[in-house]
């Protein structure tokens, strides 16, 4: 018997191939469609400058969403990214204003973020606190610590080298966009080409099977929160550079946009399924909607309605897809 014959009539190959490709290209299709509609609605939509702005505006949420993808892939959630972002931004800005140089400042921000991620990871992986609860706690703790850190005041007068991270350009492209692109590329490769990436999928897809297969489930679970914290820290640095000061109240409810981007991008909240590319499109979709409705002068109220509808729709497609399977 040939090893590669068709199995059962219940899973016709042609249909599954079609479905696979729909899974893969459905979101980009929606995205392109939206762009076409926008291009016809506003002559300024398709300009270089506008696209640079969309990308720059997306970069913060995008960086957060990349980390969030890792967490959600393991069936977890990280509600604390907005607060971690503010905390890390403030830490990094404080170091920068003390005159320690750019590298030290950026590292301080990322380190601060990663450390809070370590606490999250410890709570979830070692103490078995449900991720929703653990990171909800951190959401509040990190925000409080941010206010304590500088007595509720923003950190201003940041050095120019630091501000370049938010405002500067490398050639024609803004630095935040480049940071975002590099982050997305690295974490896409890690997920796709390394054993660690496969373990993340396996732990989220079926924790018991992963354990039986000799994967350190606890380590993997722990690590995704560190990744998320680290990237939230980086996003905090970029945000304070972009707003020229580190504000303690920055990043409120950013976690929701990050989760939205991940979910729109096709990552399943029940774990094990999803890609960074999907998340990129999810984040861009949100960026384009916000930008488009601003260009068209549509009230922000409708903007919120539109975003909500798209999130629900994206999950509906996911549910529908699973049912069909």
């Amino acid at each position, binding site marked *: 018997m040939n090893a590669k014959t068709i199995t059962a009539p219940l899973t016709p190959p042609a249909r599954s191939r079609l479905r696979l490709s729909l899974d893969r290209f459905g979101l980009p299709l929606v995205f392109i469609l939206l762009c076409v509609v926008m291009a016809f609605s506003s002559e300024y939509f398709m300009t270089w400058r506008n696209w640079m702005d969309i990308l720059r505006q997306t970069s913060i949420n995008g960086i957060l969403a990349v980390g969030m993808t890792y967490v959600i892939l393991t069936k977890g959630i990280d509600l604390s990214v907005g607060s971690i972002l503010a905390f890390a931004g403030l830490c990094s800005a404080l170091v920068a204003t003390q005159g320690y140089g750019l590298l030290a400042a950026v590292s301080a921000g990322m380190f601060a973020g990663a450390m809070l991620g370590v606490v999250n990871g410890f709570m979830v992986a070692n103490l078995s606190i449900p991720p929703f609860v653990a990171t909800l706690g951190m959401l509040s703790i990190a925000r409080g610590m941010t206010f304590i850190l500088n007595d509720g005041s923003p950190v201003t007068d940041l050095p120019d080298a630091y501000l370049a991270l938010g405002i500067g350009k490398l050639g024609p492209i803004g630095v935040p966009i480049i940071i975002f692109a590099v982050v997305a590329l690295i974490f896409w490769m890690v997920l796709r080409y390394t054993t660690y990436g496969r373990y993340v999928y396996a732990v989220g897809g079926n924790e018991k099977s992963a354990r039986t*297969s000799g994967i350190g489930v606890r380590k993997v679970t722990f690590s995704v929160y560190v990744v998320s914290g680290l990237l939230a820290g980086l996003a905090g640095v970029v945000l304070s550079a972009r707003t020229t000061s580190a504000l303690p109240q920055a990043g409120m409810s950013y976690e929701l946009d990050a989760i939205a981007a991940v979910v729109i991008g096709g990552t399943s909240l029940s774990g094990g399924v999803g890609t960074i590319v999907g998340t990129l499109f999810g984040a861009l979709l949100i960026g384009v909607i916000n930008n488009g409705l601003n260009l068209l002068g549509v009230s922000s109220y409708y903007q919120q309605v539109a975003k909500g509808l798209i999130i629900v729709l994206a999950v509906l497609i996911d549910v529908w897809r699973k049912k069909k399977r």
Partner: protein
Amino acid sequence: MATPLLLQAEHVAKAYAGIPALRDGRLSLRAGSVHALCGGNGAGKSTFLSILMGITQRDAGSILLNGAPVHFHRPSEALAAGVAMITQELEPIPYMTVAENIWLGREPRRAGCIVDSKALNRRTRELLESLEFDVEATAPMHRLSVAQIQLVEIAKAFSHDCQVMIMDEPTSAIGEREAETLFKAIRRLTARGAGIVYVSHRLSELAQIADDYSIFRDGAFVESGRMADIDRAHLVRGIVGQELTRIDHKVGRESAAECCLDVQGLSRSGEFQDISLQLRQGEILGIYGLMGSGRSEFLNCIYGLTTPDAGSVTLQGKPMPIGLPKATIRAGMSLVTEDRKESGLVLSSSILSNIALSAYKQLSSWSLINARKENQLAEDMVKRLQIKTTSLDLPVASMSGGNQQKVVLAKCLSTQPVCLLCDEPTRGIDEGAKQEIYHLLDQFVRAGGAAIVVSSEAPELLHLSDRIAVFKGGRLVTISSDTALSQEALLSLAS
């Protein structure tokens, strides 16, 4: 006909997106009888049953219930007409009582909204007594055994005045003794005039319980008749469509003298006590025991999923680390778990990454995966185990049970183990796939490996293993190398 027909289905057909899943489904169920519905995976049984229950809609054909044509659009309609189904996956509400589960949504009430718990419990007791089921009406569901839960489900179906009961693999999750309880219950039901459609891959129990049989193959009805008129070989022939050459796998197999796995005094409180046994190279050791005898727990502990309270495990002379599957895998052990969906596979992932899951250490350098090696491994495994698929990138969720089980085996073999632990390796898969897995295990030990196979099917163990260890109540009763042992003898040792 002497006895009236309860249910008659003729030429039932169903296609999904133009591809037929069922071409010609037929069934004639007599009142007061058990009707075995047989067929391999993909024979169309599941589709047929879900049409009977109104879960899916038929494209063609007719179904008569008590002589009147019926067409159910949803399960509740079927239930109302007296057709009920007990599935493999039972989903009771764990923290409610038996009575509350049975009457969920139909509780006797006072003043329109207050549940009358006295009446509720009285009715439940009456129902359970009339069926002679030994279950307490006020016991919470989560305290019951799987078999007892099944009894509750059956009682629930009868509280709806059910005439036709469909049982899909009811014994797949329970042991022999519980199965006896179930069979007694079935006989009591048929005595009351109900008809049972019974689906099981365990052919031996069909002979025990069924009166009639029907065989489906490739989506169509093949034949039917009285169970008493045929033998097991006839049934297998009908299901597989050809004469299955039952190779005696043990012929010429000789286990070496070297000890592969040595377990000394292994204990884990509440699970098993003081178990010592040796596994020789080139040998298959069967472990037989009832549910709760500690057989699965024993395997899990050797493998490192749990930590023992006392005792040691030595593999090829080296002491094994405790409680660390990662290390036992590296030392050369592999475990095929009892429930492939729950703890064997990552259903949402592709066939490729499932096969490679345990082997990434060998497939990567500096934790970067070598995609060529990964593909090569998966392709080799697909060829070696004859896994039927069109693409390695398909999710395993889309495969049949037998093929999924082979993927689990492939995953376990991919780390090149010397000792393979198998917990119910043929559970819920069809006869053809079973034979293939027997063959694989045989090949594995002939190539110098060693295997432990846990199974609750005595014939399987008698057929496959060189020696059989019998577990009872967490203790090792005996290890017998007498493979001419009878099924009855095994059962009496175990219970």
